[in-house]
């Protein structure tokens, strides 16, 4: 009798909590609205961002440039003193990396899917397609802000990702994911800070990304929306073309 009563109380409490959680639609719609609205997102076709990068506490600093075009074409160039250039690119179903540290390589499997997904300029508008299964699981306090916690299972992914949206502002505050690659599984946690307007949409200007024992801090100083990018802006470098030719 007592057990049954207890179960009933627990079940009611769970239903109450579930009833207080917003739907995924509500969370994403609020976030889209908070960052500029659907119409402004749809007007963005290309973007060029520049800024600086730093590996926290290690005295390693550099520059970053990100050229992007809808839907998922991108080339990111980071240049650190003492390491040189690290280039990554996506588009046309491929994802690649090229650096003196690792040499040229074509990403495959989940690592490729994750790169292509991360490059989607319209990810917020097409969140169901990009994130697959989405559940609002509860609330957490992140960076001092009360946030909704969403767990997503993107298509072709074996690992769930977690997203935290500020309950009040609607902005994405943090995400946590597992990068699955030939190197193994790497936990990545990113904090998105200092949202500012660029061409009608709000973009975080500071990202703190914890990866294994190191933290990468990216600070974006300039964002150009719909710039005319050169025709070869997304062309893979010769060493990547050589790998593609061998496939």
């Amino acid at each position, binding site marked *: 009798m007592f057990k049954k009563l207890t179960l009933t109380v627990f079940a009611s409490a769970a239903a109450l909590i579930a009833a207080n959680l917003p739907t995924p639609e509500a969370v994403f719609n609020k976030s889209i609205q908070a960052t500029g609205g659907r119409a402004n997102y749809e007007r963005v076709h290309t973007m060029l961002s520049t800024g600086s990068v730093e590996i926290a506490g290690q005295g390693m600093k550099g520059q970053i440039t990100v050229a992007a075009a809808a839907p998922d074409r991108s080339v990111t160039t980071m240049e650190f003193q003492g390491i040189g250039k690290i280039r990554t690119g996506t588009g046309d179903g491929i994802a690649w990396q090229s650096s003196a540290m690792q040499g*040229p390589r074509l990403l495959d499997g989940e690592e490729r899917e994750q790169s292509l997904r991360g490059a989607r300029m319209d990810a917020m508008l097409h969140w169901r397609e990009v994130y697959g299964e989405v559940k609002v699981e509860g609330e957490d306090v992140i960076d001092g802000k009360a946030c909704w916690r969403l767990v997503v299972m993107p298509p072709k992914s074996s690992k769930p990702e977690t997203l935290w949206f500020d309950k009040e502002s609607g902005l994405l505050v943090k995400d946590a994911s597992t990068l699955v690659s030939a190197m*193994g599984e790497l936990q990545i946690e990113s904090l998105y800070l200092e949202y500012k307007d660029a061409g009608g949409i709000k973009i975080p200007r500071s990202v703190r990304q914890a990866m294994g024992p190191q933290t990468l801090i990216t600070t974006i100083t300039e964002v150009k929306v719909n710039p005319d990018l050169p025709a070869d802006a997304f062309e893979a470098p010769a060493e990547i073309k050589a790998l593609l030719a061998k496939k």
Partner: protein
Amino acid sequence: MKTLRYVCLLAALPAWGLAAEPENPVLASFDQVWNTVRQRHWDKQKVGEAWDRARAELRPLAELAKSAQEVRPILQKLLDMLGESHFGVIPAEAYAQLNGGSAEEAEPAFDIRVLDGQAVVTRGAGDVKGGWILERIGEREIAALVAKAKAVASGEREAKLIGYAVIHRYMKGAPGAAKVMTFLDGENQLHTVTVPFAAQPHMVQFGNFPPFSMEVEHAVRNGIGYFRFNTFFDPEFLQQELSLTIADCGDCKGFILDLRGNMGGIVGLAASTAAWFVPKQDKLGTVISQTGKSNLVVFPRPNGFHGKLAVLVDALSVSSAEFLAAGLKDLGRARLFGEQTQGAALPSLIEKLPDGDRFQFAVADYISAAGAAVEGAGVMPDVAVRPTRNDYLDGRDPVMDAARKWIFSKE
């Protein structure tokens, strides 16, 4: 969330130290070292109760230290309790050149190794000949330095490394300057030579590491490619030089990768160097840190060299050089010649301390592709060759000779 808390704790560390003892950066440095090891060491048992006891014993001594110089031996005693490589304090003076101070960065063109308790010239240059024994630098007796290194080292390999490092400190000089050095030749005759210091052609700077002089030597001779480098830094320069050598080696019978005296550097460069010699994607080994396991993966280069590969190693092949040697050996891709490597093979980071010194600390263990720990054990050569002073006096390099012989053999 777990990682975030971990990051926040790290970010809070210096602030905590400074807030607790704002007037004492020396004590704050002790606290930062102790805390960093406590929080970031991959083996929690090792930094459990014993680590607490070490703090209780040594922190009172650190409270009495008045300068970075005074706290260094206390910190070293603390770190020595771990019994692992890649834990140490680098004096701020090592960074003097970066800060516009005086820097004795140039080195002579000759090189030495500690052999049988003596500093033997292994690569002659100018008036200094191979096989000579370095007796004095100015008035400083080298035999005393070698003896001191032997006294503090845990074994012969470490004595060679410490001896080399200590002697090298005195061998450095300002570019354009010279030092008087005394050598003993093969006939037991003393030679006093004024050794000039030319500016290092390739100095590299990487994060919080002190500036390094990078040397690369490469050639294609008699059907064999040869590549020697002393450190795994400046990836673009290193990979470009290696690619040029391999491009010239289309008809080579074999290739010699000389890792003797290579003091390591960026861990990932071990894999990208192997990428020129490994035909299919594979892993050199596994890095095990507090946050999990990560494979050191080799992504093959499109135009690599896949013929016979000999890797030369000695007790001064350290860290990334050991990752590369162990990995190529385990993958069955190379034959190793020379002496057992140092066994100082832990991936590490360097952070700045409140007193201005830098703290190098290991953040992971390294297991080779065959599943063996390299730390402490080192990498054993397939063909053991131990050069003698007489070899250098006669202008021979028996390790290189053994590698050449194998390359031209039908083995």
